[in-house]
């Protein structure tokens, strides 16, 4: 792995993503922690039949979730609108309000996209496991529900638990405040969310940051994702 991971421009950062790739997208769902410049570059790049793995399938463009009033949200919806997604794995695909429809819902209704719904804690634990060399684990979450159907269930200490498998992707898009050229990432506030776990669980991890600094400029105590997990860093300010 090169010791300078800086990538010049978002188009470059995503240029080798092939049709059929699986891509994790970080963030909780709002503006904070969402690598939307990478999403935009991927839309422009045009790769198709993608599997998108993310908490939401893009609800903020119709709800404003986690975006400041007055700003125009951008989210995963741009990929669904553009017909690039074949499969979505996540926890919160549609807006909370039944009266609002997002681009995922429209694509789903047209049967363009398959959905794998996962409880949020199981979702992030599967991703962490994917990065941590744990092929499978048991969790009490979802036992006795339809999200456990077809899965092995075993009782531990009197409690039914579901066996869940690790989740990995070809690419991860993560968002942090600052990167150094070695790929160390510093996060701010609740914008950590799924980013640190996803950074560990992809073959190629690409980080969208506000700025890139030389090694030594991020306090070692504040590194949220050690550089070993990160392949490319690209700055919004570049």
């Amino acid at each position, binding site marked *: 792995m090169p010791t300078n991971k800086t990538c010049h421009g978002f188009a470059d950062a995503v240029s080798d993503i092939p049709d059929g790739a699986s891509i994790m997208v970080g963030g909780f769902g709002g503006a904070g922690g969402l690598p939307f410049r990478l999403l935009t570059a991927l839309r422009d790049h045009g790769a198709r039949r993608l599997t998108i793995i993310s908490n939401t399938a893009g609800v903020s463009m119709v709800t404003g979730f986690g975006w400041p009033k007055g700003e125009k949200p951008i989210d995963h919806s741009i990929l669904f609108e553009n017909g690039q997604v074949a499969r979505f794995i996540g926890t919160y695909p549609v807006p909370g309000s039944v009266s609002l429809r997002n681009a995922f819902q429209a694509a789903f209704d047209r049967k363009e996209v398959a959905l794998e719904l996962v409880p*949020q804690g199981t979702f992030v634990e599967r991703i962490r496991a994917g990065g941590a060399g744990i092929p499978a684990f048991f969790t009490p979450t979802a*036992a006795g529900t339809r999200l456990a159907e077809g899965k092995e269930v075993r009782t531990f200490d009197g409690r039914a638990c579901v066996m869940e498998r690790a989740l990995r992707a070809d690419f991860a898009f993560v968002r942090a405040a600052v990167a150094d050229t070695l790929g160390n990432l510093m996060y701010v506030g*609740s914008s950590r969310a799924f980013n640190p776990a996803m950074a560990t669980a992809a073959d190629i991890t690409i980080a969208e940051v506000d700025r890139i600094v030389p090694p030594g400029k991020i306090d070692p105590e504040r590194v949220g994702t050690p550089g070993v997990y990160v392949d490319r860093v690209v700055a919004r300010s570049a």
Partner: protein
Amino acid sequence: MSDPAPRLDRDLIAMRVAREFEDGFVVNLGIGIPTLCSNFVPEGVQVLYQSESGVLNYGPLAEEGRGSIDLINAGGQFVTPNPGMALFDSAEAFAMIRGGHIDVTVLGGLQVSRAGDLANWFLPSRGIGNVGGAMDLAAGARKVIVAMEHNDRTGNPKVVDQCTFPLTGARCVDLIVTDIAVIEVLPDERGLLLKEHAPGWSFEAVQKATGARLERSPSLAEFTFA
């Protein structure tokens, strides 16, 4: 079937739920009525709110236009820091939830069964559901309180013998607070105990509005808020 007296509004449901909070409790509030609970925490009780978004001990909502995109709750609202706040990622947020470190979660409900099964994530008419953190909270929180209307818009009971909607969790609910009743789910499927009813209501009136058999608490009383 006509109601013997008015039903409580959402604020009063939330106010009654908040009476269950004890000093130092770590509390996770779902979206909807549960969110309102934070407005009614009793005097002298300090509650630490936890959110799936990776925050422990956040404060009130930010004033309009003053929030930060980097500090949201699980509903996507901008919140403010409390002194002693902690930030962490989603893996940690759910380790906390699933690991039994949350004292109370308050969740909305579509149905709760006699055994304490909860259905709250999937409305069959929509065809797609959001599960979010609900299943983890139902499975992991030490105490699960469901705050909801007692009946749906067409009058059907939401406290039922068996849930017909897909489950969020099996045998997970400890307490149900509705606009007419406070019902304890007795452990080991020993049934539902009516502990409080709304002013002007009676055991019989609440039973009539309910889809499962209720036991009468020896200390059955009107809702208390303070």
